[in-house]
C-alpha cells in the first residue's frame, strides 16, 4: 500500500525519481528547483537510491551529461529554473533529435530582469518547440504522478522523446500538499527498466548524430514531427493505465472545472489554476455561470481537445503567466495557441488575453474576480473593446 504524506512539489518530484530507479542524475543549483536536487542528493547519500549523482558545471553541462548518459542506456534526470533553463538551450534539440528520453524538471522562475526568485512560465516556454513532451503540474501530487507518467511516455519505443515536467516555482515546488506515494513494486510494474537498442555499446557499433546533408534534413525533421504527433495516443494510453493502477484518473489534455452550463471561462495552466478554482467556486455560489479549463499537456498541444473544451463558452479569457513581447495578440502564448485551436470560431467566441503574475507575483483572488467580471462584460456586449489586459495595470 502507498502512504500519504504532506510534502512539497520538489520532494514529490524527487520521490518519483527515486521510485523510477533513475541511474544518472546531474545537478546544478538555482532556485527554486534546487530543492528537488538536494532531496535526491540526500537519498543517494542515505542509500535510498542507487544512482550516479554528477555535479554539473552549469545547466548546459547538466543537459550534456544526461545526453551522454541516456545515449548509453541509463535512465536520467536533471532539472533547472529560470535563466538556467535558457542557458542550456543549445542542448535541447540534440537531445530530442537523437531521440533520447531524458527527463528534466522545471520549477519555473523569472528570467532576468527582474531576476527575482518568483515564478513565471517564461523560462520553460522559451524551449517549447524543441521536440520535448511538456506540461504543467498544479499540485505536488500531480508533480509526482507526472514524473512517473512522463518517463513511461518518453521511453515508449513509439515515442522516444525527452520530457519537461514543469511545475510553478514556489506555488507548487515549495508549498506542501497531501501526496499519495505509490509503492515501489507497483511503480515497477507501471514503469519497467528503460530499454533501448540504439545505445552506445561496442558490441553493436553505431553512429549517433552524424551530420546530414540538406536533402536528408526534411526526412529527419519529419520523423521527429511524427514522433511528437504519434505520442498523443501513447499519452492517452499511459494516463489510462496509470488511472487503473493507482486510482488517480487524469484527463491527459485538459481539466475542466465547473464548466457545465458555464457562459464564460478562463483557460490557464499550472498552479495558479488552484487559486482560480476558489474564485470559480465562490462565484458559482453567487449564481454566476463561470468555469475554468486547465491545460495539462502543452506539447504536443491538444488542439482538438482545447477546441472542444472552449467552444461551448460565450467568451474565453486566457491567463498567461509569461512574457512574449511582440507576440500576435500582445498577451502570451496561451492566447495565440487557444486562438489557433479555435480558428474559425473567432467571430462567434471572443477570446481575450490576460497577462498576470509576472515576476513571480501571485495572482490574487481579486484579480481572478476582475478577469471573470471582464469576461461577463464582454459576453454581454458581444465583443471585447481590447484583446489583452496586462494585470494589474489594465484591469
Amino acid at each position, binding site marked *: 500500500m502507498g502512504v500519504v504524506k504532506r510534502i512539497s512539489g520538489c520532494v514529490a518530484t524527487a520521490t518519483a525519481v527515486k521510485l523510477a530507479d533513475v*541511474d*544518472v542524475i*546531474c545537478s546544478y543549483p538555482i532556485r527554486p528547483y534546487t530543492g528537488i536536487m538536494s532531496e535526491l542528493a540526500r537519498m543517494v547519500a542515505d542509500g535510498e537510491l*542507487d*544512482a*550516479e549523482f*554528477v*555535479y*554539473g*558545471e*552549469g545547466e*548546459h*553541462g547538466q543537459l*550534456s*551529461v*544526461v*545526453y*551522454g*548518459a*541516456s*545515449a*548509453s*542506456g*541509463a535512465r*536520467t534526470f536533471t532539472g533547472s529554473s529560470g535563466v538556467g533553463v535558457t542557458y542550456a538551450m*543549445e*542542448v535541447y534539440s*540534440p537531445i530530442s533529435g*537523437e531521440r533520447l528520453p531524458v527527463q528534466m524538471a522545471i520549477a519555473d522562475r523569472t528570467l532576468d530582469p527582474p531576476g527575482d526568485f518568483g515564478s513565471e512560465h517564461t523560462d520553460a516556454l522559451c524551449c517549447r518547440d524543441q521536440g520535448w513532451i511538456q506540461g504543467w503540474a498544479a499540485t505536488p501530487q500531480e508533480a509526482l504522478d507526472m514524473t512517473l507518467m512522463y518517463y513511461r511516455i518518453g521511453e515508449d519505443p513509439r515515442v522516444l522523446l525527452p520530457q519537461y515536467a514543469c511545475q510553478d516555482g514556489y506555488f507548487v515546488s515549495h508549498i506542501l500538499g497531501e501526496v499519495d506515494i505509490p509503492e515501489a513494486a507497483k511503480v515497477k510494474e507501471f514503469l519497467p*527498466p528503460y530499454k533501448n537498442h540504439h545505445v*552506445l*555499446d*561496442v*558490441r*553493436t*557499433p*553505431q*553512429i*549517433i*548524430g*552524424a*551530420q*546530414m*546533408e540538406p536533402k*536528408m534534413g526534411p526526412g529527419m525533421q519529419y520523423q521527429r514531427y511524427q514522433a511528437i504527433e504519434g505520442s498523443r495516443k501513447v499519452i492517452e494510453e499511459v494516463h489510462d493505465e496509470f488511472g487503473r493502477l493507482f486510482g488517480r484518473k487524469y484527463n491527459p489534455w485538459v481539466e475542466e472545472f465547473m464548466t457545465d452550463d458555464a457562459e464564460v471561462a478562463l483557460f490557464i495552466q499550472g498552479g495558479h489554476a488552484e487559486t482560480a478554482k476558489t474564485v470559480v467556486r465562490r462565484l458559482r455560489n453567487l449564481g454566476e455561470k463561470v468555469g475554468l479549463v486547465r491545460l495539462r499537456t502543452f506539447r504536443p498541444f491538444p488542439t482538438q481537445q482545447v477546441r472542444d473544451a472552449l467552444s461551448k463558452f460565450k467568451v474565453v479569457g486566457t491567463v498567461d503567466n509569461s512574457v512574449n513581447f511582440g507576440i500576435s495578440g500582445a498577451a502570451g502564448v496561451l492566447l495565440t495557441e487557444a486562438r489557433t485551436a479555435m480558428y474559425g470560431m473567432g467571430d462567434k467566441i471572443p477570446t481575450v488575453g490576460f497577462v498576470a503574475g509576472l515576476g513571480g507575483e501571485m495572482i490574487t483572488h481579486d484579480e481572478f474576480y476582475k478577469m471573470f467580471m471582464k469576461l461577463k462584460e464582454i459576453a454581454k456586449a458581444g465583443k471585447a473593446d481590447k484583446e489583452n489586459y496586462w494585470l494589474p495595470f489594465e484591469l
Partner: protein
Amino acid sequence: MLEEIKSLRKAPEEEYYVPGHRTCAGCGPALQYRLVAKAAGPNTIFLGPTGCMYVANTSYGCGPWAVPWIHTQITNGGAVASGIEAAYKAIIRKKKTDAEFPNIIVMAGDGGSSDIGLQALSAAFYRGHNILFIAYDNESYANTGIQTSPTTPYGAWTTFSPAGPVIPEGKKLMPKDLPKMMAHGHPELKYLATASLSYPLDLMNKVRKGLNAEGPAFLYIHAPCPKGWSFPADKTIEMGKLAVETGMFQLYELHEGQYKLTYQPKEIKPVEEYIKLQGRFSHLQPEHIQKLQQFANGRLKEVGIEVSVPAQ
C-alpha cells in the same frame, strides 16, 4: 590493460578509423585519428564535438569508425563523456547491462577544448571521470574556413586575423597553453601528455597510457593542417617534425606528478625553418619572426630543453 607497443611493426594491424571520409589530402587530424583508434582498439566509444573531425568525417550521414561514435556540440565534449562514463558505472553496478566498461575518448579540436569547450573539459577532469580527452590541435577553427582560435600562433594569418597595413603581423596574441592549464589545478588528473602525429609510436603509447590510467587523462596532439596553414599536402609529417625540432611544440608527459620529456631533438633549429614553409606566416617581418623565436625559446626553457637559437 593495453600493453605498450614496442615498435611500429608491432602495432596492431586492425584499423578502427577506416577510409571513406572527406578530409583534405594530407589532413593531420585524420592521420592522428587513425593512430589513436588503432591504439585504443575495439572496446572504445568515440565522441566527436563539432569541428573538422565531425563535419568531414560524418558527411552524408555515414562515418569512418568501426566502433561507436556520438556527436557532441562543440561546447560539451567533456560533459557528454562524463554522462557516458556515469551511465556505464551505474548500469554495470546495477546489473542493467553485461557490457564491459569501455574506453571513452573525446576527440575535440582546439576550439572544442581550449575555447568554447573549456568549461565542460575542466569540469569533467575536476569530477574525475574515467575518460581520455584528446585535443587535436590544428591551430585554428579550420572547419569553418580558418578562423583564429586560442591556440593559433602569434603571427599566423587566418580569416579573422588577416595581415594588413594596420596590423602587419596578423594574429597579435600569443597562444593559450592548454596542457599547462590542464596539468595544474585538476587534482583528479591521472595522466597528461603532448604528442605529435609525426611521432606515431610515441603517440600510440601515450593513448594507451591515458586509457590505462584509472581516471581522467588528457592528450594534446599536434596535427598540422595543410589547408589552414597553407603548405603542400605531402608535407604534413615534415611539418609536425619541424614544429618539434624548432621548439614550437614540445613532447612530454606528466604521470604521477612527474614531468618527463619524451623526445628531445638533438639540435634545435631556428623557428624560421618551420614558418617559411607555411603560407600563413608569409607576411611576417623579421621583428615578428623574432617574437616567435622568443616564444619558442620560452616554451623550451619551461620544459628544460637547452635553448640554442638566440632571439633578439
